[in-house]
């Protein structure tokens, strides 16, 4: 093997997977994992760790993989992450750990994400669970939301001996991991449900169907004996463009489209929830959410276009997702921006009017900002438009919790190190604080808040 190249990972053939919802990537087997692990130089001063938002001891776990000692490797990762099988699949490794890998200077970075995934999958398949063995503290903490931030915060607090209850608004725990990210990228039963079981095995209770701010307020939680509260309610409120025709039939938010498919399993004949059977779809946006919506529509039999106003370089999605989407036959209409949605007399979508863009001067985000090319208007005929333009936190909690400070973007204001909000005993983290971001950042915030809560309750 060429040490400059990574061990390739087995995947479902593009032509086959474009028609099913099974996982695209098969991951490494033991032999492949050990071989890939050999490529790790075991740096004394590992740069990869600085790229990881939860500072996993990467050379430490890879060292164990080299020796085929997977159980030990799992224990090392578990010290830092409660959801390794998830992170190995959905983290943007190319801009985090793998970006700093020394191997990456001359050749390809070590496949850290795929190794993490292998270790976590192996542990699950071999029935290895994280354990807690600490005296109970007899102090109740409430966690709002069961996404990555809530699960991580709850898991860490349980490991410290706290009595933790998670309250989740939906009927299923997992947050974006169950309602947003599709089955073919993150298997729900096999991976997500299993990781949630691990959190429960630590003693965490999960109450689904409870909406904080509606079913019960934060103040009532304190009255009920909870001594601290963590808000990990995510950023679920979808944004629309505000262009003409956007309320027509056949225009969906990516959240609606993905929720119908993932959470409600509309793609499965056995489930009752309907989903439109689109023939030709435009997905507006260029992030992970856009890729997921596009690839879901493709699997349901549609011709799918990604409409994105900047160029390929600026696509915010994970590189692997863009690559997979292209392989599967998604058409990328880049430097293109919708200006109007066209519909017939029954308000059903018939097309989308777009303009072409070119890149101008860099804007505040450092990316070159797109500028409209005069007179470049054109129409794409289609029947479905999916808006994947980002989301913001919903107001259910902030509007019912006195003294909880939020910023202009409706995000909860919280201290980065401790998660402390403007209300005593109330902590927050994840997308609810940062706006839509990533799984690993949400986990990092949940972790920090668990420490913050422990400090607060220890001093109280």
């Amino acid at each position, binding site marked *: 093997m060429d040490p400059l190249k990574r061990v390739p990972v087995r995947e479902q053939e593009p032509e086959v997977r474009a028609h099913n919802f099974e996982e695209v990537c098969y991951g490494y087997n033991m032999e492949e994992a050990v071989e890939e692990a050999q490529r790790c130089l075991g740096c004394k001063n590992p740069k990869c760790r600085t790229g990881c938002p939860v500072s996993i001891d990467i050379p430490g776990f890879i060292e164990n993989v080299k020796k085929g000692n997977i159980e030990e490797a799992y224990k090392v990762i578990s010290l830092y992450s409660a959801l390794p099988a998830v992170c190995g699949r959905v983290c943007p490794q190319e801009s985090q750990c793998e970006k700093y890998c020394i191997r990456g200077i001359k050749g390809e970075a070590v496949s850290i994400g795929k190794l993490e995934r292998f270790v976590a999958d192996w542990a699950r398949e071999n029935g290895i669970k994280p354990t807690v063995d600490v005296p109970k503290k007899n102090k109740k903490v409430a966690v709002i939301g069961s996404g990555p931030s809530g699960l991580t915060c709850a898991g860490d607090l349980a490991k410290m001996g706290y009595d933790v209850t998670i309250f989740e608004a939906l009927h299923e725990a997992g947050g974006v991991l169950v309602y947003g990210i599709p089955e073919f990228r993150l298997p729900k039963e096999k991976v997500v449900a299993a990781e949630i079981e691990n959190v429960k095995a630590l003693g965490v209770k999960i109450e689904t*169907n*409870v909406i904080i701010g509606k079913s*019960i307020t934060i103040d009532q939680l304190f009255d009920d004996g909870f001594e601290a509260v963590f808000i990990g309610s995510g950023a*679920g409120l979808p944004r629309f463009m505000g262009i003409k025709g956007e*309320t027509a039939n*056949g225009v969906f938010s990516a959240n*609606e489209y993905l929720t119908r498919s993932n959470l409600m399993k509309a793609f499965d004949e056995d489930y009752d929830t309907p989903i439109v059977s689109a023939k030709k779809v435009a997905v507006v946006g260029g992030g992970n959410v856009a890729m997921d919506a596009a690839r879901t529509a493709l699997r349901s039999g549609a011709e799918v276009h990604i409409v994105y106003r900047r160029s390929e370089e600026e696509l915010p999605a994970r590189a692997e997702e863009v690559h997979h989407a292209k392989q599967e036959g998604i058409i990328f209409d880049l430097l293109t921006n919708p200006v109007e949605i066209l519909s017939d007399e029954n*308000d059903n979508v018939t097309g989308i009017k777009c303009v072409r863009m070119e890149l101008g001067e860099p804007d505040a985000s450092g990316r070159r900002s797109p500028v409209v090319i005069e007179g470049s208007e054109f129409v794409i005929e289609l029947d479905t438009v999916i808006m994947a333009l980002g989301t913001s936190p*919903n107001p259910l909690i902030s509007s019912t919790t006195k003294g909880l400070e939020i910023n202009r973007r409706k995000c909860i204001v919280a201290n980065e190190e401790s998660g402390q909000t403007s209300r005593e005993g109330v902590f927050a983290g994840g997308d609810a604080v940062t706006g839509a971001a990533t799984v690993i950042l949400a986990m990092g915030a949940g972790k920090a808040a668990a420490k913050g809560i422990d400090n607060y309750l220890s001093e109280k």
Partner: protein
Amino acid sequence: MFKIVRKEVLSDKIILMDVVAPFVAKSCYPGQFVIVKIDEKGERIPLTICDYDREKETITIVFQTVGVSTERMAKLEVGDAFRDFVGPLGVESELVHESEEVLKSQKILFVAGGVGTAPVYPQVKWMKEHGCDVDCIIGARDKSLIILEEEMKKYAKNVFVCTDNGSYGFKGNVNDMIKELVYNQGYKYDKVIAIGPVIMMKFVCLLTKELGIPTIVSMNPIMVDGTGMCGACRVIVGGEVKFACVDGPEFDGHLVDFDGAMKRQRLYKTEEGRAMLKLEEGDTHKNGGCGCGGDK
């Protein structure tokens, strides 16, 4: 699991159930709704709360069998349970927040259409419990679809029943009834609260606009999560996009775009109809019924 402790068949296709749901029963108010899901494979179905008992921790729901999911729900019996029952969702009725003085100073007419009588009921009850007399019209196509008349009479000063075909009460639709009361019988109202099919609410609003009576309606668009996450429930009110599940479901009826709302409701008609056919007649309709492979 959320247990069913009472079931009554109110009419051919309308069913009432009391369900034990402590969180909801403790904190709900008139005007709010719940989302129920029968089992793992069911849809999330939004239903307005018809009554609640804080002590027994029960919520009363009333639904009409219109699609595959409500058809399945109708088969549940006392002792069975819903897998999921979440709420209260949406904003409570405005009248919950008004002082008794303000409430007493106005004369309110409730207009209930068909199964919409259920969500009107807790509001009428609330008014009576706060010392206010209100009137209520209950309208439906046919006598068999008039529900909760006796219950309503306990709390409303006057209950006027009307049916389109004249099989019971006044002959005519709710609009004819309103006109009869206002033009011929000298009733005066300061506010109308109308809940029923979208088309009914639309026409009531056209009339009350003419009459200059402020009107509140309760919208029931397609929903998925009910927490403001998906935007399926969007309605246009006063030219602005609102999410019925978090901003509503009650809105100023004179500002709602009813035509748009009706078009949106048709969106899943075909899909839902298909699911229904499948339930009744098995898998034969999967390919559009004739085996031609759909609408080619």
